């Protein structure tokens, strides 16, 4: 945009294409933090990450460093990781147990897990000067905090929809589908966070997650290698290869299969990819899972739960969730061309061990730092970012695949094929709304 001219971010998003500046421009990025990451509901963590009083885990919301903590009364708190005295970070560790109180490493002010002051050393210097109950001397809580079925979110704005409304049916399905698969209705996080930095814009990752055209191309090598070894395993041992081989081989399904999937767009950018993997084979693990769910909920409800085939949900703008495999990746933007992903998986409380083994196999093969799958995705992301950072060579990014063919019913958008670029268009509709609604 020419100097001195007011930028209308809405102009960057058209029905079937977006301007490259939305991925590569520093000013657009800063504005995204203000209008999206510092306003909307952002995932913090799962409450089972902090099972005991004094437990804490740190993360990011936009540019802000946040702490999720567990108080002695069992309550979970989301706080800014900042000392009210002279501003130091309170927690330098990624996670830990603070005991009864956080203790600032600079002058040892102490704070309860809810951020209130517990103790200040050599307090005579403050006698008659300050009142410790004055909120300016407490660690600051997130402006708003919400919990949906154990998944904790924060919004750094006092205004806007409440968490459940913001998530809506589209995003709530991610958490419902995880929890419902547990005979106890609850998920428990596995306390391991793989962190991988992508050298690309945060939106590129979210778009890729629901891009059903790319897997057979990008992951061609991995799919072929897995299919070949699946066969070799069977030939050599007489047994079927472990499920992980199939997870990898599935990346090179024929295009007709990807075509037959569905994508569904919801308000606020939440988007689903449905279908894909048949995770109800007649193996002993699945049968045991069916039995456990039938005991808990009855046969009809069991069937309903396990027939839910939401393969992948984007909880806009911060999460990629794969409920049937209990995988969750949180997006933490660090710059227009740099994104931290925090990668987690869950156990379903009360489900058979084999169900967890499946989640673990997926976590290893697709989401660990040695993944053969994301090796090629991350390589693409970096190449995309470098292409988009150029001044010349074209200004627009095409999202034309099946444009104009989506059907909209009650605010919910359905694509005509799994390979449609509807998910990207749906996310950008929310982006445009969020970036311009304050003006």
């Amino acid at each position, binding site marked *: 945009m020419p100097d001195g001219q007011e930028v209308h971010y809405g102009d960057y998003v058209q029905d079937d294409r977006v301007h490259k500046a939305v991925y590569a421009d520093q000013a657009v990025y800063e504005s995204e933090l203000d209008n999206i990451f510092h306003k909307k509901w952002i995932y913090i963590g799962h409450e089972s990450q902090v099972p005991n009083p004094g437990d804490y885990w740190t993360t990011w919301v936009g540019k802000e460093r946040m702490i999720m903590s567990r108080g002695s009364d069992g309550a979970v708190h989301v706080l800014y990781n900042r000392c009210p005295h002279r501003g130091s970070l309170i927690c330098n560790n990624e996670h830990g147990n603070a005991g009864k109180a956080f203790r600032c490493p600079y002058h040892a002010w102490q704070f309860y897990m809810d951020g209130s002051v517990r103790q200040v050393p050599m307090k005579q210097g403050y006698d008659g000067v300050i009142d410790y109950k004055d909120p300016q001397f407490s660690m600051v809580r997130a402006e708003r905090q919400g919990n949906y079925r154990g998944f904790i979110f924060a919004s750094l704005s006092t205004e806007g929809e409440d968490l459940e409304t913001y998530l809506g049916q589209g995003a709530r399905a991610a958490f419902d589908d995880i929890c419902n698969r547990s005979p106890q209705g609850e998920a428990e996080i596995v306390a*391991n966070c793989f962190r991988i*930095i992508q050298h690309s814009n945060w939106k590129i990752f979210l778009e890729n997650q629901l891009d059903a055209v790319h897997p057979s191309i990008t992951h061609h090598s991995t799919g*072929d290698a897995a299919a070949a*070894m699946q066969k070799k395993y069977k030939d050599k041992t007489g047994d079927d290869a472990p499920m992980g081989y199939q997870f*990898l081989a599935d990346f090179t399904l024929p295009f007709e299969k990807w075509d037959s999937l569905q994508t569904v767009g919801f308000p606020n950018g939440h988007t689903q990819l449905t279908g894909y993997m048949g995770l109800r084979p007649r193996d002993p693990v699945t049968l045991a899972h069916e039995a456990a769910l039938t005991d808990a909920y009855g046969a009809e409800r069991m069937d309903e739960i396990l027939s839910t085939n939401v393969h992948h949900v984007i909880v806009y703008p911060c999460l990629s969730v794969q409920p049937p495999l209990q995988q969750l990746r949180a997006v933490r933007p660090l710059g227009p061309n740099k994104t931290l992903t925090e990668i987690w998986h869950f156990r379903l409380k009360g489900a058979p061990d084999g169900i967890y083994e499946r989640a673990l196999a997926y976590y290893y093969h697709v989401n660990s730092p*040695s993944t053969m799958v*994301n090796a*090629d995705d991350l390589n693409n992301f970096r190449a995309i970012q470098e292409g988009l950072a150029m001044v010349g060579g074209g200004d627009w990014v095409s999202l034309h695949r099946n444009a104009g063919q989506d059907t909209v019913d009650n605010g919910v958008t359905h694509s005509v094929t799994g390979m449609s670029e509807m998910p990207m268009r749906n996310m950008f509709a929310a982006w445009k709304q969020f970036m311009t609604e304050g003006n």
Partner: protein
Amino acid sequence: MAAICSVETQLAVERFLYRQAEIVDDREWDAWLALFAEDGKYWMPATADQEVADGQPNIFYEDLFLMEMRIKRVCHPYAHSQAPTQRLSRVVSNVIIESEDGATGDIVVRSKFHLVEYRLDDQRYFGGKYRHHLKQTDDGYRIQLQRVDIANVEGPFGYVLQTWL
């Protein structure tokens, strides 16, 4: 913990470790697979104090089948992230034999490594320790288990690890 063993044993073990380093740096994949016992495993835990691999998250935990799968991928003409490929160079040192089984000749040995990985104008640096369980065979040592603890185990990783460190 360190065991007293003969100079010959020390030398044979060091030669094995140095040769393994060269094999993986130079991508001699058939030779790599031949280093492992039939049920041998390559293991990189996800935390520094992790004691078992099974049933837990790991960075690497691979048997010969999974290793061969990884090799098939990096050798595949459509392995996009292998164009260009990464170039590795490492030094293995501080070789300390922890135990030598008098009857079988099996060895437990720990060592340190420093390594650089170059790819796409970027150089990454890794350091850490190896712990090898070596099985003595008629054909020399075979790896029963190689545990790899990298110093930056909790990341964040600026890119994935496409082959073994």
